[in-house]
């Protein structure tokens, strides 16, 4: 029997990153094939190659046994490959049917739209999925789960024989997941091949036939989902050796708790999170994407509202309702998305370093003392080894690592005792990474409290004195740092879903 999809020796490089190294993957008709790996393992890149979004740099791709070259998403669509992205891309103000057939609307004469045919064709697809949905419903009024069904229907309307689902259950509750799985099983019975990307182990056992594991852009292996223990899959995922020097954990028993957070809550995203960070400590936050770590950080910083919870800095309760309050209390937040939330990229290095402290550089009338700003900027450029031709360089022209250092300089100059780093090395190459690590360790040693949120386990293990692990908005445990904690321990907590029968807030 020929495979529906067969990828052999796929290679993909980005500047500075070897994203896919000789990766192979096969999919049969009527199969749910899970693709697993840590964040950054190359799953999404591989799927983007399959769906024609990225051209491959090497290797062969066979669809139904015929070798093909994809020159764009369109040609992959024509070959019957549909992809459902993690972020749904529907137009909320249009109806279900209008969404499904966008760009291919049935027409009458003189360019008039054939609304009746549109709805009829949508219903035909829904019937094939055994789904009861009114094609005239406005998409924005549907639940996320139903919107996902619409995406699936849209993919099927292209007569897709291959469906790629990227973390389809990320935003769904248990009942909705069950609904989705029913649809998946029905498609499977019709001979559709489904590639299922997920981090959630329990789901794999329920829905997948085979599991392919990737790590660091390489193919690790393919196993049968039913008779492979979860622990084996996890160890295949994280199997990489932590080659870096082990963390030296300082004795902090006497140290003051700089930041104490208790009962932090907001909806489903943050559920009763309590922890503290001591002076001189690096607390790592591990978890899978969507676990709620960034949400916790933003809530502490006052960037997003919180429903409940107390924040104490230096033992004193702080009422933080906006970032300005947090900064006043000495908390700095370095967002994972520097370009959108950290830097005014069109402005120069000097202004960006001074951005949080402009009031210190200005007279009572608000006149800026440019020479002081220059001296400060040049001081930090030297101290943090920021590679830039001058302090007048626009930050958008710097590399990722140097941009990150500019953001760090901004908060250091503001004298923040508590620094929250959200994915501090995202988009930064290997060499600059270890520089950032060195810097974080130095900052802790100087007596600051550091929180590091990272999706890369080796990074967490290399830096953290303690490791807080989150899953689906809950803090599922705090592990000691150092060698006694294994990646498997962390992954176990990171995939520890709340028992669905228990009420929310059930004690850990």
């Amino acid at each position: 029997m020929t495979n529906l999809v067969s990828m052999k020796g796929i290679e993909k490089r980005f500047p500075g990153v070897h994203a896919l190294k000789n990766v192979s993957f096969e999919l049969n008709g009527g199969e749910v094939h899970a693709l697993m790996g840590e964040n950054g393992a190359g799953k999404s890149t591989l799927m983007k190659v399959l769906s024609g979004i990225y051209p491959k740099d090497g290797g062969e791709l066979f669809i139904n046994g015929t070798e093909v070259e994809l020159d764009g998403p369109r040609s992959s669509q024509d070959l019957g490959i549909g992809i459902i992205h993690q972020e749904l891309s529907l137009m909320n103000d249009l109806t279900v049917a209008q969404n499904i057939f966008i760009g291919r609307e049935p027409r009458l004469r003189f360019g008039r739209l054939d609304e009746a045919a549109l709805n009829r064709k949508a219903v035909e697809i829904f019937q094939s999925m055994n789904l009861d949905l009114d094609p005239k419903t406005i998409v924005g009024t549907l639940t996320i789960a139903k919107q996902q069904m619409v995406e699936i229907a849209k993919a099927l309307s292209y007569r897709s024989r291959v469906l790629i689902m990227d973390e389809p259950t990320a935003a769904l509750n248990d009942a909705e997941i069950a609904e989705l799985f029913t649809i998946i099983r029905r498609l499977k019975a019709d001979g559709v091949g489904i590639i299922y990307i997920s981090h959630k182990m329990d789901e794999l056992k329920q829905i997948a036939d085979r599991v392919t594991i990737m790590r660091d852009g390489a193919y690790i292996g393919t196993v049968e989902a039913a008779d492979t223990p979860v622990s084996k899959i996890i160890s295949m995922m994280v199997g990489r050796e932590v080659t870096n020097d082990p963390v030296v954990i300082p004795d902090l028993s006497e140290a003051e708790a700089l930041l104490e957070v208790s009962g932090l809550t907001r909806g489903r995203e943050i559920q009763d999170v309590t922890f503290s960070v001591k002076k001189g400590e690096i607390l790592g936050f591990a978890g899978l994407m969507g676990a709620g770590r960034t949400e916790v950080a933003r809530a502490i910083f006052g960037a997003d509202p919180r429903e409940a919870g107390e924040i104490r800095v230096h033992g004193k309760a702080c009422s933080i309702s906006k970032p300005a309050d947090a900064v006043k209390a000495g908390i700095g937040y370095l967002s994972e998305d520097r370009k959108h939330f950290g830097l005014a990229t069109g402005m120069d290095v000097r202004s960006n370093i001074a951005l949080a402290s402009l009031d210190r550089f200005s007279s009572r009338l608000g006149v800026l003392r440019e020479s002081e700003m220059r001296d400060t900027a040049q001081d930090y450029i030297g101290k943090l080894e920021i590679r830039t031709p001058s302090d007048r360089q626009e930050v958008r022209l710097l590399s990722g690592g140097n941009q990150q250092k500019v953001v760090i300089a901004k908060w250091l100059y503001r004298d923040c005792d508590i620094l929250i780093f959200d994915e501090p090395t995202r988009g930064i190459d290997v060499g600059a990474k270890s520089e950032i690590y060195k810097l974080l360790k130095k900052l802790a040693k100087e007596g600051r409290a550091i929180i590091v949120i990272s999706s890369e386990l080796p990074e967490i293990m290399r830096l953290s004195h303690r490791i807080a692990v989150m899953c689906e908005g809950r803090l599922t445990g705090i592990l000691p740092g150092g060698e006694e904690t294994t990646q498997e321990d962390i992954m176990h907590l990171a995939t520890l879903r709340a028992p669905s029968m228990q009420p929310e807030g059930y004690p850990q």
Partner: protein
Amino acid sequence: MTVVNSTSTPSLFARLIDTGAHQKLLAFASLVLLLIGFSIASPNFMQTSNMIAILQATSVNGILAVAATLVIITGGIDLSVGTLMTFCAVIAGVVLTNLGLPLPLGVIAAIGAGAFCGLCSGTFVSKMKIPPFIATLGMMLILKGLSLVISGTRPIYFNDTPGFDLISLGSIIGDFFPALPIPNGVLILFLVAGITSWILSRTILGRYCFALGSNEEAVRLSGVNTDRWKIAIYSLAGSIVGIGGLVMASRLNSAQPALGLGYELEAIAAVVIGGTSLSGGRGTIVGTLIGALIMAVLTNGLRILSVAQEWQTVVTGSIIILAVYADMVRRKKA
């Protein structure tokens, strides 16, 4: 998968040259070309009196454009500058003519009214999160109506306030250099432009102007009270418009309540021609001045060449599209 952004070194230099200064240069070159062109086409164009007429015509639009530049750099837009100008003139009329108070009070009232209306717009935009286009569209209509209500739809004349017309039409420079009778209105424009330019480049307010337009969320997450600064910027713009209202009223020696609509678009046009980005984050007052001059030179030159007024508007519109297109092409290359 993370993709490392690599900036190749050769293009870096080219990009540096390309940003900022380029569009201003382009605008300036266009202005010079226009001046040369009209001089060749008509001997009457390059006369001192005509040059002064062009400057005089630039003064009000220039001042409004300076105010609009501030707001546009923050990534906003101000549609109310035209009717706010009229509103401030009417307020001056009420204070000076109807109440008979002394001249300085009228000046303070007009500028104060401008600042207060700017404060309102700024509050709508920042605290109430109304998009600037809508907030200032509302203000534009409110102020148009209020001007008519307060004035009883009739012009208010300043005949009882001796010296009011000198604000715009007198010439301090001419008193010292009789050969150069540049009217005070023009002097005020250059003063306002100079001070605003200085505020933009040298003060914390100016720096936040660019920072807000460049990345408002990053500024907020730096712990800056962005609402307060935005309100301050809109208020400053409003007070500048108040000055514009005074210059206008002084030139006409009256506050004309029906005037004002359409001035906001001319001001925005000058800003855009001057190379300020409508998406915020970059722009200069010098550019705006050049933009305002280009529009005045065009109108004046075409009139001297006896081109019908209807066609003048068509030309102005085309210039705006050309200017922004040039900016787009430049940015795509960068």
